[in-house]
């Protein structure tokens, strides 16, 4: 891989397998083999400092597993994650603001936790000032630090999660579906806050979402995942203007569009196959309108000579999917 001076995170051939076999005795009696699930299967990407890379895909495509691998909550089974920054300055925001805040701690203590862990010799009064500042940064008041999480609405809790993530002065934030549990008007508040903070503090985001309109608003680069692999990765504007992979097109066609509702659609059939027994070759081939024999046998890679490593698709290699 080339040396990119401005890259903060480089992920190379990342793989994560989970053992999903039946218990030992069942395997013995029913003569079942061991089974592994490849949640992440050979993923490469680079994130530039100060930018947002979004991972999109449907449930089970491995996007949250990547979040856990990058933050070190899971060790990778194979491949390499190189973080060119201070590991202590990597933080995470989770989807469910109800499950990610300790209900028995006051908000002030929750937000101070990263500070106390990462810089244990900070004097107590400085910690308190910092917590007050953080609460105000995310649009809450300093008095809110004395309350418990249950006293807040979902959107306010997500602000608390953001304040906690900011406490360690992070440079890199992994955000796993940070607004999926929120109502749209609250989502807008949180997304605006995240964008403002990025601009102000030069943060880098790995932003995980299933919502293409949110991702379009937030990301500089979008990686589309299907069954543990990145099938397409492009700068946001290019991806929407000229999607290269048939799966990206399927996604773009099926999301409801407020401005141009497709009321007479005939949706594409098929479902995401089980990641335990993915289809041979390109795992999208059973649903793909452009699939031919090679797709059933061989697994497409993103290659430099095909749209500059932006797509893993044999039909695209043959020139079959470009719009222009």
């Amino acid at each position: 891989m080339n040396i990119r001076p401005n890259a903060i995170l480089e992920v190379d051939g990342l793989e994560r397998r989970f053992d999903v076999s039946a218990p030992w005795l069942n395997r013995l009696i029913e003569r079942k083999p061991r089974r592994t699930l490849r949640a992440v299967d050979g993923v490469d990407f680079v994130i530039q400092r100060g930018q947002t890379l979004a991972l999109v895909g449907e449930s089970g495509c491995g996007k949250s597993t990547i979040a856990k691998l990058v933050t070190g909550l899971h060790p990778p089974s194979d491949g390499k994650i190189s973080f060119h920054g201070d590991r202590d300055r990597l933080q995470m925001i989770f989807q469910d603001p109800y499950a990610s805040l300790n209900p028995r701690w006051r908000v002030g203590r929750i937000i101070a936790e990263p500070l106390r862990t990462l810089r244990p010799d900070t004097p107590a009064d400085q910690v308190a000032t910092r917590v007050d500042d953080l609460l105000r940064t995310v649009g809450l008041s300093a008095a809110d630090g004395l309350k418990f999480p249950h006293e807040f609405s979902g959107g306010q809790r997500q602000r608390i999660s953001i304040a906690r993530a900011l406490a360690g002065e992070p440079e890199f934030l992994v955000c796993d579906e940070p607004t999926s549990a929120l109502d749209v008007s609250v989502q807008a508040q949180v997304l605006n806050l995240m964008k403002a903070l990025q601009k102000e503090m030069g943060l880098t985001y790995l932003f995980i979402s299933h919502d293409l309109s949110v991702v379009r608003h937030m990301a500089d680069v979008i990686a589309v995942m299907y069954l543990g692999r990145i099938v397409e990765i492009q700068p946001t504007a290019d991806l929407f203007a000229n999607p290269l992979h048939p799966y990206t097109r399927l996604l773009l066609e099926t999301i409801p569009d407020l401005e141009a509702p497709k009321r007479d659609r005939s949706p594409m059939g098929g479902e995401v196959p089980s990641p335990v027994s993915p289809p041979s070759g390109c795992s999208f081939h059973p649903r793909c309108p452009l699939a031919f024999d090679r797709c059933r046998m061989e697994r497409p890679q993103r290659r430099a000579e095909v749209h500059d490593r932006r797509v893993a698709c044999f039909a695209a290699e043959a020139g079959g999917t470009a719009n222009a």
Partner: protein
Amino acid sequence: MSDIVLDVRNLRVEFPTRKGVLTAVDDISLQIRRGEILGMVGESGAGKSMTGMAILGLLEPPGRIAAGTIRLSGDRIDDLDDRAMQHIRGRRIGAIFQDPLTSLNPLFRVGDQLVETIRLHTDLDPSQARERAKTLMHEVGIPAVDERIDNYPHQFSGGMRQRIVIALALCAEPELIVADEPTTALDVSIQAQITALLKRLCRERGTAVMLVTHDMGVIAETADRVAVMYAGRLAEVGTVDNVVRRPKHPYTEGLMGSIPSLRHDVEELQMIPGSMPRLDAIPPGCAFNPRCAHAGPKCRREVPRIAAADAGAGTAACWRTLEGETA
């Protein structure tokens, strides 16, 4: 006979609590015609699901219908007792909920659940009912029905399970289907399949559908008319096109602006300051007035209401619309 299937007038749902009576649904009037899909939108706690539950007769005590009437093809159903309501649910009103796993019994084969429901509501014998179950499963798009009919719910994917729930709701050919967030638990590509299915069934059978969802995109592509709820009240009703493109109520306008666009770049999403009031702290006058940029003295004093007679046409519960000027 007119073709109005569901006629709700001045519906009010209350929850008596120790601290006083909370009004979860306040003076709602709606109509749905044969073959029409009415979308009910609003954010969590706006009362949209509660309205659906009141129509289904499934309010959890101490919740109760405190005022108003609900008519199903002309018959009053809001004052029926549990037994009579049970008779109507399933037969005349079908229900589809968000999580297909909670609507299906995990211990019984899906075919048996369908057969049981069909036999409860019709006088078919077991083998006829099984044939009907197969027809329904085929109709909702389940492949290889002969094999799948004897599977258990866990053997189906989320999208397929929701199809079975739809088949269950259709068993007795109901006049009305109340679908509460039917696609929220599903992935986008599956979501499109399910909404297309709902639309097709509604068109072919003339079923009236009340589609409760928080997702404006789903509404824009599926519903014919929309009712927007805010703090238990109706904020706006109208055709999809009008409500989405030419919203009249400042709340609807803010809601539309806060949704990230698939076509335009905006640096900042439009925000509605603050949040929806809790049921025990609804401000006097228009419930939206503390968050509204146009609020005047009248908005803080008097509640703007959509008259039951106007609920069919399309209007907003906003003094600016009702009086055509800034109040």
